[in-house]
């Protein structure tokens, strides 16, 4: 059996799985931003520990499910598959040399470290290693490969982002406490609701189908283990990881630093801005888009419906346009990847939980209004600051949540 045979999609929900474990596509801008948010809030040492632990907690059920479904029984074949998938998903090349008591791992072109150095290396010197996701993944891979009762602590001892030639890790038998309940396909199915229909539905569905066909063919195409699609570093990633770190941030802010809770929420929301600006923007500008859909001209419904299609194709859920005019956008969805996690972990017991969807919806309207679509300026960090950090007049509010038992998640964006 080929691992690709274990891919599945809940088509009416636009949620994707491999071996019953949820997956989404995200690019390096989003990945780096979310990781940095965690480190900024907790401090680097605690942030790295939290991210590594979350990566292990998300990766372990993913890998064990995969090994079981493929009936892989020996540690070498399991480790080989874990490493192969890591590259196929755009995370770089990971080499694990470990046994039941621990060992080492090394990495080349690791997504986080490589992309960090590419994006920030010329302007900043990194003080701490960047590859907590790879570290946690390696820890999970060794535990799952050898089927040990114990876990593995892991340290990144050298990192490409800190100008090392390659990344290196040490693994030791030990405990890595995990506080999360990962979502699997069964849990996701319990959360999703029947699909909704909105504006421009035919257009969105057509584009979604085309993008999905294209994305299905790009994974694992690069020798480096870095995946190019639409001209950005793309990863196929575990939403359990994103959710674990995001909602641990939320919980810590709420419990220990309530004054900082609005700041934490704003940063989680901003991850949606970062994704829309860079990933959605990059896709809309790309030659692939121009060929498959046509040049984007900047019309309101064209831009927003295009973004709905991109979100669906990336596995974010079946986002629809419920209402739309030049000062008002209502995004609804009967499926998204944040609420199932909140539901099983009881981590955000109110309507205000889908921070990524909130930020993305807001960013879509700002991007439509403020980007000069005729000139298509380069999507630089300076432009991002001008568009998203400047004084602005848009507000977002989440008014319904699947996590709260509502029939859909609803986000309302209004111009003030």
């Amino acid at each position: 059996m080929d691992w690709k045979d274990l891919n599945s999609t809940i088509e009416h929900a636009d949620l994707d799985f491999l071996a019953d474990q949820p997956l989404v596509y995200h690019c390096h801008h989003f990945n780096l931003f979310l990781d940095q948010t965690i480190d900024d809030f907790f401090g680097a040492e605690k942030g790295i520990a939290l991210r590594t632990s979350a990566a292990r907690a998300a990766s372990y059920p993913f890998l064990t499910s995969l090994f079981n479904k493929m009936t892989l029984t020996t540690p070498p074949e399991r480790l080989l598959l874990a490493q192969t998938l890591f590259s196929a998903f755009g995370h770089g090349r990971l080499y694990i040399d470990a046994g039941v008591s621990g060992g080492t791992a090394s990495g080349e072109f690791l997504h986080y470290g490589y992309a960090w150095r590419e994006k920030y290396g010329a302007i900043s010197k990194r003080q701490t290693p960047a590859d907590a996701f790879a570290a946690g993944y390696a820890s999970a891979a060794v535990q799952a490969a050898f089927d040990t009762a114990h876990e593995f602590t892991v340290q990144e001892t050298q990192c490409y982002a800190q100008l090392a030639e390659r990344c290196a890790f040490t693994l030791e038998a030990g405990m890595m406490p995990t506080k999360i309940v990962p979502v699997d396909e069964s849990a996701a199915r319990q959360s999703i609701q029947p699909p909704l229909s909105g504006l421009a539905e035919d257009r969105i569905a057509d584009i979604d189908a085309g993008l999905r066909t294209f994305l299905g063919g790009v994974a694992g195409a690069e020798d480096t283990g870095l995946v190019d699609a639409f001209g950005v570093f793309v990863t196929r990633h575990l939403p359990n990881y994103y959710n674990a770190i995001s909602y641990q941030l939320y919980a810590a802010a709420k419990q220990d630093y309530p004054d900082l809770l609005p700041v934490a929420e704003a940063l989680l929301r901003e991850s949606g801005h970062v994704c829309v600006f860079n990933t959605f923007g990059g896709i809309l500008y790309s030659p692939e888009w121009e060929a498959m859909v046509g040049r984007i001209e900047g019309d309101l419904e064209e831009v927003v419906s295009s973004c709905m299609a991109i979100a669906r194709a990336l596995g974010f859920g079946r986002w629809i346009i419920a209402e739309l005019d030049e000062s008002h956008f209502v995004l609804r969805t009967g499926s998204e990847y944040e609420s199932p996690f909140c539901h099983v972990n009881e981590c955000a017991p109110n309507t205000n939980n889908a921070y990524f969807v909130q930020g993305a919806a807001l960013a879509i309207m700002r991007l439509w209004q403020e980007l000069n679509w005729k000139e298509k300026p380069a999507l630089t960090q300076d432009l991002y600051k001008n568009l998203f950090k400047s004084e602005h007049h848009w507000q977002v509010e989440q008014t319904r949540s699947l996590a709260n038992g509502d029939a859909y998640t609803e986000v309302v964006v209004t111009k003030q």
Partner: protein
Amino acid sequence: MIERDDGCMRGFLWRVKASLPPEQVIGRLSAQGFKHTDHRVFSVLSARQGHKVIVVHSTGRVQIRLDWTTPYTERRSEALRIAQNIISSERHTENTV
């Protein structure tokens, strides 16, 4: 001959400004050893070194997408070299790609 193409990456994406029929670009690069993948409405031509050229069939847009490992200081010159290979009518061997 080339300019930075739209996108969010630092010097990886370059637009070829020459107006050439898509089939001519595809033919020239294929003759130089680029592997051609036809996606019906666009083509991806991949060099062994990892560089790619994307050709939009309907509009003729040509984007050079450099391999991620290309050092920053070499990106413009590398893109220019590929663009020259596209525009030049000379045939090149695979080793020049």
